[in-house]
């Protein structure tokens, strides 16, 4: 079998994952629609807010819209097509990696791409929609938007992976993962300049939402090469860390053992 044939496996896998969700087309489209509306509600809040306070530390409604466009696209792509990412800690603890470990494909991409998360597909639709409708798309701005989504996606992916990988080391980490995820997402969706002091430091290290909520200004509005380079470097570092933790974790993987319930 040729290399090209082997590469063609991944799109086929994603297609199968999508078709598995489309087994219930009614629920599929309803969920997507609901999530688009849900994201829209948040923009409506911001519209209410900015109709009273038009500029906050240099941010306008448009910047928050850009933040939602970038954040929803990035997180939607990562969690939507990597549908097993948000359940990874649970899968590790319950020994559900066995099947992937017994098949001749790299475990991590095989596992992540094997499930589509329909709710997140709503984000994937919402993000670009906001960009196209409200953010004055041009070729240059489209390029910057794609760059921002790619960087934000890389940070979300590496961060969530690192978080869930803790299940290898802590035994159970699903609750921790859910809590940190919701915190990360929340901080990622508010304007960067409102966070000051020690909190700001945390948001550029432990809970790297700061990189994401700075993007509307430092990538889309007035591109700052230094910020872009720093974000890319951070994303790379975080990815390496996550992969290292994953590889170390697999060595400690304990599968699902009956005696765990018996002790």
């Amino acid at each position: 079998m040729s290399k090209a044939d082997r590469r063609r496996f991944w799109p086929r896998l994603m297609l199968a994952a999508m078709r598995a969700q489309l087994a219930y087309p009614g629920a599929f489209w309803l969920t997507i629609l609901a999530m688009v509306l849900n994201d829209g509600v948040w923009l409506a809040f911001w519209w209410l807010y900015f109709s009273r306070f038009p500029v906050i530390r240099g941010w306008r409604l448009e910047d928050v819209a850009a933040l939602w466009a970038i954040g929803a696209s990035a997180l939607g792509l990562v969690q939507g097509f990597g549908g097993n990412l948000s359940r990874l800690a649970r899968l590790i603890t319950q020994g559900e990696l066995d099947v992937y470990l017994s098949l001749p494909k790299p475990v991590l991409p095989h596992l992540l791409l094997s499930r589509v998360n329909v709710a997140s597909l709503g984000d994937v639709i919402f993000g670009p929609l906001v960009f196209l409708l409200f953010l004055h798309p041009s070729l240059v701005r489209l390029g910057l938007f794609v760059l921002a989504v790619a960087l934000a996606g890389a940070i979300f992916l590496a961060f969530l992976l690192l978080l869930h990988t803790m299940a290898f080391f802590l035994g159970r980490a699903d609750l921790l993962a859910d809590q940190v995820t919701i915190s990360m997402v929340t901080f990622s969706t508010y304007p960067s300049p409102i966070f000051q002091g020690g909190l700001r430091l945390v948001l550029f290290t432990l809970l790297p939402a700061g990189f994401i909520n700075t993007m509307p200004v430092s990538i889309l509005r007035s591109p700052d090469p230094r910020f872009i380079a720093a974000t890319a470097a951070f994303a790379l570092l975080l990815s390496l860390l996550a992969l290292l933790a994953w590889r170390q974790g697999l060595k400690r993987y304990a599968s699902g053992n009956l005696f765990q319930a018996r002790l």
Partner: protein
Amino acid sequence: MLAVRTEGLRKVFEQGRARERRSHVAVAGIDLRIEQGESVAFIGPNGAGKSTTIKMLTGILHPTAGTAEVLELVPWQQRQRLALQIGTVFGQRSQLWFHLPAGDTLRLLGAIYELPPTVARARSRELVDRFSLGDLLSIPVRKLSLGQRMRFEIAASLLHKPQVLFLDEPTVGLDVIAKAEVREVIREANRDGATVFLTSHDAGDIETIAHRAVVIDRGSLVFDGKVSSLRRQWLTDKVVELRSEEEVTPPQMPGVVVEKATRYGLRLRFSAQDLPVRQVVAELLERYPVHDITISDPPLESVIAAIYQREALKR
């Protein structure tokens, strides 16, 4: 080339968080050599280390110590290469896509195992015919019965003509007919040259599929030999069945247990170690006008029960 070779293979699980950390020795150092084409049953009660061993041999778990080679590959280091040459079925876990038609999973697995599309198609057709799955191809897996699903699981694991087949409780939860079908399918794979390595609690599985039995007890091998000699060696008991020409009253003989008594028949059991067979038979022939007498080893079922009970007593 050996199918499986292990030396001192050991796995210790660390459990609990920092302060109350406990270790649990799941596999305590196993030496095993399996030739290609053998069919081996791996026997032992829950928690004895069967699944842990299989998972190390398939590259799912990393061992704590010791070495293992499957088809001359180190499973946890050359996992993907090995996976192309072995097949696995975990009775408790499915490799099929729950919401997709079963046929789609076969096609997807063809791609996973890197079979050229024409080969994959031919091979699926062959397996579908042999396992009579033709009518089920378009049904979503979630709607299949457990027996139908298991036949698909095994067909899926044979798609790439694996040289070694690892089966962890392949008949668990199946009804009698489905069990027989699954056993037949595994035997056929073995006849085609695949080495079969199977765990089961079911004496029927072991008797119909395996020639060699390996008994594991709290992580260590305690028996390795033919299934037939397992029956003789593990339990020295003998079972005597006797039909008399006249009505019988059960005998009172020290060391002999009456398992069953009917009007003209008796089933007795004794340990050949304590009582010579010759002596028991002579006494019975003297006592009853014997019409027919058979002496046999106890059924495998009770051998397995004895293995598990010994385990329970030691704890």
